[in-house]
Every structure is written in structure tokens, then in C-alpha cells.
């Protein structure tokens, strides 16, 4: 399934770029990160536990930055395993300057392979929307914090 949107952020483009490309601040954006490991410049991995009312959705995520044009565009591929299924996410963002702030156009294509993918079919879209919302809120917070420094 595909989700996309545009988010207006109050910090400058360099600041936003920095937040999005620093693995450490990246880790703070994602919900339920328990550990985060940087393999090299373009590869990271994380153990996450997406906190749901029914218990954590535990996944091991591997990230690979596949494309990068500083300070405006990056593409990231993530693969998650651990819930009896495989989650593949292909996500990209484009940053443009908008006055003193930044406009971020983002898109994500999420696929879940395995029987859980079908069980979660009717809940997948709302859950992804929720998580995206969380990520964007955290991003906004970090960007304004970084901009204020």
C-alpha cells in the first residue's frame, strides 16, 4: 500500500536534512526503537517494538539508503522481519525551501508478505497512517528543537 503527503516544517532545509540523515535522530523519530545500530553510512539496523494496545509488534528492521541528493532528496529501503511475515518499505522524501521553513514531500510504499499481511489487511492502512502521523509529529518536534538551537 502507498501513502504520501506533504509536511510543512518550521526549520530550514539544512536543519531538516540533518535530522533526517543523522541515524541517531532518525532513531528518535521511529516508534518503539529499542536498539539502533549503524553498520556504515548507508546501512543501519534497529530492533523496534511498535507499541499497540495488544502488545508490542516486535520487528528487526534493516535500512538501506539507496539514493541521496543533499540537501533535497533521499530514498530509503527498509525490511522488517519477526512477525511471521516480512515488511518491505520503500520511502522517499523531497525537501524544498518554503520561506524560512521547509516543505517535505514524502511517499512510502509498504508491503507485507506472509499470512499476517492478509490478517492485518483491514488494519494495516489505519496502523500505517497512525505510525506515519507519529513519525511526522516527532520530526516536527525535532526540527523545531534543532532550529531553536
Amino acid at each position, binding site marked *: 500500500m502507498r501513502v504520501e503527503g506533504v509536511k510543512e516544517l518550521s526549520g530550514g532545509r539544512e536543519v531538516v536534512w540533518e535530522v533526517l540523515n543523522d541515524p541517531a535522530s532518525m532513531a528518535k523519530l521511529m516508534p518503539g526503537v529499542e536498539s539502533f545500530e549503524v553498520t556504515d553510512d548507508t546501512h543501519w539496523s534497529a530492533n523496534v517494538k511498535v507499541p499497540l494496545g495488544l502488545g*508490542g509488534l516486535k520487528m528487526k528492521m534493516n535500512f538501506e539508503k539507496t539514493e541521496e541528493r543533499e540537501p533535497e532528496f533521499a530514498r530509503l529501503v527498509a525490511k522488517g522481519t519477526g512477525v511471521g511475515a516480512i515488511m518491505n518499505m520503500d520511502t522517499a522524501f523531497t525537501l524544498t525551501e518554503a520561506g524560512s521553513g521547509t516543505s517535505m514531500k514524502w511517499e512510502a510504499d509498504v508491503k507485507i508478505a506472509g499470512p499476517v499481511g492478509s490478517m492485518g489487511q483491514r488494519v494495516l492502512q489505519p496502523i500505517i497512517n497512525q505510525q506515519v502521523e507519529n513519525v511526522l509529529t516527532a520530526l516536527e518536534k525535532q526540527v523545531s528543537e534543532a532550529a531553536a538551537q
Partner: protein
Amino acid sequence: MLLREVEYARPSSLEEALRILGGNDGARALAGGQTLINVMKSRAASPDVLVDLAGLGELTKISTGAGGLELGAMVTYTQLASSSEVDVTRPILGVVAATIADVQVRNRGTIGGNICSNDPTNHLPPLLVALDATMTIVGPGGERTVSADDFFLGVYMTAVATGELLTKVTVPPPGGAGDGFAALTIGTDGTCIVSAAASVADGAARIAIGCVSGTPVRAAEMEAKLGGDFGEASVREAAKGLGTTLDPPGDVHASADYRRHLAEVMAVRAVLQAAGRARS
């Protein structure tokens, strides 16, 4: 089948339950288990610790008072369906509870579990929104109440935070209100494809649609358009366009478009039922 390893405790007091829940953010309350155990069997979401609420007898009570109908979080669907307190105040709760899943599930499944799991197909979240219920949540900082409108945050996500417990659902006294519920289900009395709940009182309606988002959706425009006229033609007219305000998921049982359409059909049916039962 075949769950992951998990720890288990059955506290005998609310304080103890809160202490255990607060001590581990992987801890989750186990009520009737009719959703949670199932999810654990599929090894999708996995709590680290289960805090069984079966030892907390005070959560199984149904009572009526000035504030309305008070339903303990551990009240089962079977209790709801057979309670005379429910029947004389907001009978719709019993009528709907009697159509949830099947006898065995109703014997164990609870109102608290139903709303805290907040699966989009669950019956009670939209119903309690329509009935304008209030949820009582207890946590380390004490007790607080949250209206049904604010309680549901997303799929499997509610205002009950880690370390907290839902203890009670309070449904306002009927005061002449009539309530209705309609759903298209997979098979007779099966899982909801789209549901709608309505409550009509004093010439106004509260309408909530289920299965069209991560949370129940209030049909605010339709409520406004109704303006006190509950004739069938007016209700149908008011429902027009409700679908376009929704962004429902599509799945194997219904496309997004079909869900938009069903939302209108079910809203009409629920409102007509409710209006027919309201004391005018």
C-alpha cells in the same frame, strides 16, 4: 496456536495490577482474552507480561445510578445481554452484545477488552461513541475519565496508556433517548464489514460509523443536517454525502467505495431504529 513465551500474573487487587503493569512497558492487561489470545496465537503483537484481571471482582459489576449505567470493564457480553439493568436503561447494549461472535466468545469476552483492543470491526466502539459514554481509566497518577469521542486513538490504540487500566464504562441515563445499531456482517451476526450506531434524544442524533477508519467516525455533517426531522425521507436525505466524508480501507470483503455506500445505508438504518425508539 503456540504462543511466544510470556509471563503471567493474576493480581487480586487493582493496586497490585497497576504496580505490575507499571513495572514493565511490555505488560498488558488480559481481560477475556478473546482478541488478545488470538493475536498472540498468530505471534503478531506479543506482550511480555499478561496481567490477568480475572481476580478483580469489582470490575465485573453492572449498576445504575444518577450518572447512568455503570459497566465494569470485565463485564462480559453475556452479562450485557442478560442484564436487567442494561435492559431497562440502554437495551441496545444488550441487543448488540448478543450478536457479537458466538456464545463461547460472549461468555468470556468483555466490554473492556472490546473497546481497549479497538479492532475497527468491533461493535462496541461506535456504539459507545453514539451513546456518549465515558471511560474511567486508573493509573499510577489516580483516576481520570475520558469521553468516548476522545477514547479511541487508532487501531489497537486507545487513551489507556501503558501502565494504566480501564476500569469502568459509564453510559448516560437514557432520558428518553432511543438507540439503534445496524451493520452489514460477514455471514449472519458475523464480523462487521461496516457498522453504524445512533442515539436520538431531544431531537438530536449522535451517529458513529465503524469499520471505516482506525477509530469510530462521528457522522457530524449528517447529525447537523438531520435537524430534528427523523422521517425516513429526511434521514435518507441527511445521509447523502456521508460516504464522501470518509476514507475507509478496502479489503477482501468490501472496496473503499462499497464501504462509503454502506456507511450511508447503515447510518440511515441505525438512525431510523433510534428515532423509532426515542420518547418523543
